[in-house]
């Protein structure tokens, strides 16, 4: 209908054919700051990654810092150890001890950067129920101290290589048919499999409707979030169960191990991770206004302490 088109066009012209304006603010020239990102828990080796702010197109990422000295001190300011550089900006040390406080120092280009953290008290973790699209996670909060829990489901791909041994050597088979063929000729053949895990994990998107969690209480990170945040206000010193939902296709994926990871973290670490997730959620809607507060003096980032428990829920 011609008149409709004409009028629609006119209205578009009048109302909506308005201009758009872009303002670009260059941040490349901002002075690069040291970025300290690390975690210390009772299970894994201590890990600190050093880099600088400002994205480097040459490196296709942020520039790693390789020539710093990273040291860990106890609550009495006694040196525990110096971290070892492992490449890609990563420095590692020993696992921490539950309920201990620590100080991390980074000496870099003549300056010392410090951050304090602690590993919170222990808790118990178990899986109460596991269905196709949800998992009931049991927490036994053992300590009357305040605990801040973070729940994650981590997926890691792996590959399986089948082999048989002949003359003391592993011979990889390329297919099940090939293996069966070898076994038919030699029934006593020694066979085996090698499982190779990807060095990278990914967070499975999870959700909850439990209003005790920050996610549902504030309704900001409730659906399809990478983490669930729960303070122990309602069950401090006791037990509780949290239902975590996920898409049912996640557990149907082959060659993918899924681990339930629950951390009790320091308040600073809890707030940092919440703000970081909020940053990501809001940035998709064109808003970059969430402040992020770390715990390193004069440097960006965080050195977070946590007590961690993991359960593999899908092998």
């Amino acid at each position, binding site marked *: 209908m011609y008149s409709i088109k004409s009028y629609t066009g006119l209205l578009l012209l009048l109302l909506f054919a308005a201009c758009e304006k872009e303002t670009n603010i260059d*941040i*490349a020239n901002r002075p690069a700051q040291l970025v300290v990102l690390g*975690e210390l828990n009772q299970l894994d080796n201590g890990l600190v990654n050093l*880099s600088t702010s400002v994205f480097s197109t040459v490196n296709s990422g*942020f520039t790693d810092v390789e020539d710093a000295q990273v040291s860990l001190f106890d609550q009495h300011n006694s040196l525990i150890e110096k971290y070892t550089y492992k490449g890609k900006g990563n420095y590692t040390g020993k696992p921490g001890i539950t309920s201990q406080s620590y100080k991390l120092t980074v000496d870099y280009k003549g300056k010392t950067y410090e951050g304090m953290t602690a590993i919170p008290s222990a808790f118990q973790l178990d899986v109460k129920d596991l269905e196709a699209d949800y998992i009931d996670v049991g927490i036994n909060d053992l300590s009357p101290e305040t605990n801040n829990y973070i729940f994650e489901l981590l997926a890691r791909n792996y590959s399986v290589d089948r082999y048989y041994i002949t003359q003391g050597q592993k011979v990889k088979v390329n297919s099940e048919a090939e293996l069966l063929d070898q076994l038919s000729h030699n029934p006593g053949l020694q066979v085996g499999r090698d499982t190779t895990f990807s060095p990278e994990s*990914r967070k499975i998107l999870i959700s909850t409707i439990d209003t005790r969690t920050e996610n549902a209480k504030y309704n900001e990170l409730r659906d399809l979030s990478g983490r669930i945040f729960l303070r122990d206000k309602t069950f401090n010193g006791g037990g509780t169960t949290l239902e975590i939902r996920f898409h049912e296709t996640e557990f149907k994926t082959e060659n993918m191990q899924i681990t339930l990871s629950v951390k009790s973290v320091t308040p600073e670490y809890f707030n940092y991770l919440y703000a970081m997730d909020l940053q990501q959620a809001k940035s998709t809607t064109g808003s*970059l206004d969430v402040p*992020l507060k770390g715990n390193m003096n004069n440097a960006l980032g965080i050195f977070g302490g946590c007590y961690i428990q993991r359960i593999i829920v899908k092998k």
Partner: protein
Amino acid sequence: MTKGNKISFFLFLLLSPVLLFGQRQSGLLSTPIKLTERKGSLSYFLNQVEHVGILLTYNPENIRMNRKVTVSNKINTVGGLLEEILRSESVKIKEYQGKILLISSPRLITLSGIIKEEGSKEVIIGANIIEKSSGSVATSNGFGFYSISLEKGDYELEITHTGYTASRIAVTLGDENLRKDILIRSGLDLPELKVTASNEAQNNINLRGDYVDLETAGKLPSFLGEKDIIRAVQLYPGVAGNNGSSVNMLVRGGNTDQNLVTLDDISIYNINHLNGMFSIFNPDVLKSVDFYRSDFPSKYGGRLSSVLNIRSRDGDMEKYHGHATIGLLYASAGLEGPIVKDKASFTINMRRSWLDLLGKEKLEDAGLFYYFTDINLKLNYIANPNNRFYMSAYLGNDAFRQKIYTYQDDQSLNFKSTLKWGNKLVAFRWNRIISPKLFKNTTATYSQYTSSLNVGEAVIGEAPARIYSTVKDLGVKSDFNYYLRPDLKLNFGGGLNLNSIISPLPYNEIIENTESNTTNALNLTAYLEDEIKIGAHAEFIAGLHYAGFISNGVSYQTLQPRFRFSYQLGKKQALAASYSRMSQFIHQFTINDFSIPTEFRIASTKNIKPEFAEIFNLSYRLQAGKTSSFTVEAYYKKMRNLLALRTGQDITNNALAPKLEDRTINGQAVSKGLEFSYKQDLNWLKFQLAYTLSNTTGTFKDLNQGKSFPLNQDFRHNFNLAVNASLGKRLEFTALWTYTTGQHVTIPKNIYKNIDDVLLGTNTASTSPSYVISGINNYTLADNYKVDLGLNLIRKFNNGHQRTWSLGVYNAIADPQARYIYTTIVTQENKIRITEDIKIRIVPYFTFTYKF
């Protein structure tokens, strides 16, 4: 000063003028006296005074000696006795050289009545009645009532009002009070502009508030040619919001929810049509608009930053009039006239957008189906000279509908999504002239605002089929004006209001046992205000507004003092200083100017305290000749318990906490500024200039790490210039230039690696780096400006009919504010990109109006 002392001090100030006639009792006046009789004539009691040995000097002819009086038991001094028995006599009591003089004051006779427009009998608000020899001035109130007290004699009174021919009437005041309704003639040729609200007459430069000149406002260029009174208000100094193409009002650092907007005394919660591009106020309906951003009259309360009081036309008591207008967006028509000549009249006005009439289906497919309707109806009836009744109603609706296609189970589905919002307003009013000095206005109001989003039976995620937001107000109040003495007027009154607020839960809210978002509240108000003339040049206004609020088992009682002192420097200059305290119990959060059901309101609770503002204002006004006026004002405004959305709460994307209290945090703000305005009114050229220099910052404990930051409504410079030039009898040229400092936005100052990349071992170029912000609103966009141009072609016919073509270009030259702002990090380019979307430019318009 303790709280109790403060209250006592305020009460003293408030009541002191009433007691001004109270004589200080010393010397002879404090002489004890014993009365054997408590009832008797005046002459009896005067004799009793002389019996205690006090010499009285008086003229018996000036005192009603035989008048019977009863004296209270508390009287035990001569002074007390004389005060009590002579209170109703025009006598001053004075001690002089060992005797008491009873000095006769001339008896004052009160002239009162209603000021009306000749012909239509429309009552005139804010007209001045001046008696030059005594310098007495009275101003007609919101219903045209005036009261002026003068000595017996013959007078020539001058009645002035902008837009009306100054007229003189002769009156003779004898022994009795006189009731006289006064008719004044419009000085304008244009019938539609006969009634204007500006009472800024040249002989009254000592004004509270601004009275919007509807005549000038009606001629300015406008978006799509549709005149809007809010756009005229946006031109006043201290008001920002003009540069975003919407009808926002950000008054002196206040937010949009801090404006009390009333139509015929009915509070309105949402004034928007078409995504905030127009207000609901049909310009053809308006009689008067007064606007306060400081010096708040004590009768107003409930909002922090401004009061916009709009009155609609009553309707011609003599003849029928009408008009029809068609423009690019809507058509309107109106009719007014007598129901019973000189007794009852009506006005009815309708507006309707007409885009949807071109084809519903096609427009729904294109996502452009939109319409709005407005109906204004007002009836009034004069029962007798002292009683008048009004009924006014408004019904307005907006609807936006689009067809949405989706796939479910491999089947293509389509459904209609309808967004609706609208107001229903009704008021019944009773004006009663109780005595020549006492006027009462009683109003019962009902206001309902509803917005809803209906997606029919389609299921989108967990969204319910319909979500809605409603606010209902049911109220009754009485206002009194008591013209106690020529130098003292009292305004007092009170009322109660029942509020019911329903806010929607978030779309995805399916949590059981959540807090109900329905809130009921009871508002109680009472006020008392004195307007005292001190000598020939000074005036002092002292008022106290009480507001009580009860909701959710919590009650708040607030006392809000209001003071204003003004001093006139000759006839051309006036200085004024004022203090106002305001409180607000209902807080509203909306996406900027766009009302969809995700808007929500929060009533004060135990944890959410009422918001308070204290405003200090200094002003200087100069009337330079008959054609120009200049005003400069300085203000300091402090706001406490302000509410802001918690970081992460996002109305646009429906990321809202189920519990209303979890959505907000509180803090405080300070706004300060200097405002200049200049008006020039020549025969052929009118222009109005306003400039504001201001600064508004807020401090919220849980925002910006507790540090102060500029609020969204902070605009350092705001400049407006409106020009209206008559180029011959039939042609008028209008232009409007606006310049504003750019909006604040929050942007990162740095970016860095995401900790998940480290812990999960990805350690590669992250697509979502973390970022650092140095503070909220840490970047100011480029300044905004716009120029609107318009032409009005007017043809008047011999039969009184009139035809008007309005042509023009809105935002002819412009870099206006954007409707939406997005920010992204462009990692590869190391840039923060701010995208300002929908900056409306170059919108031509035309409208055609025929009036009869």
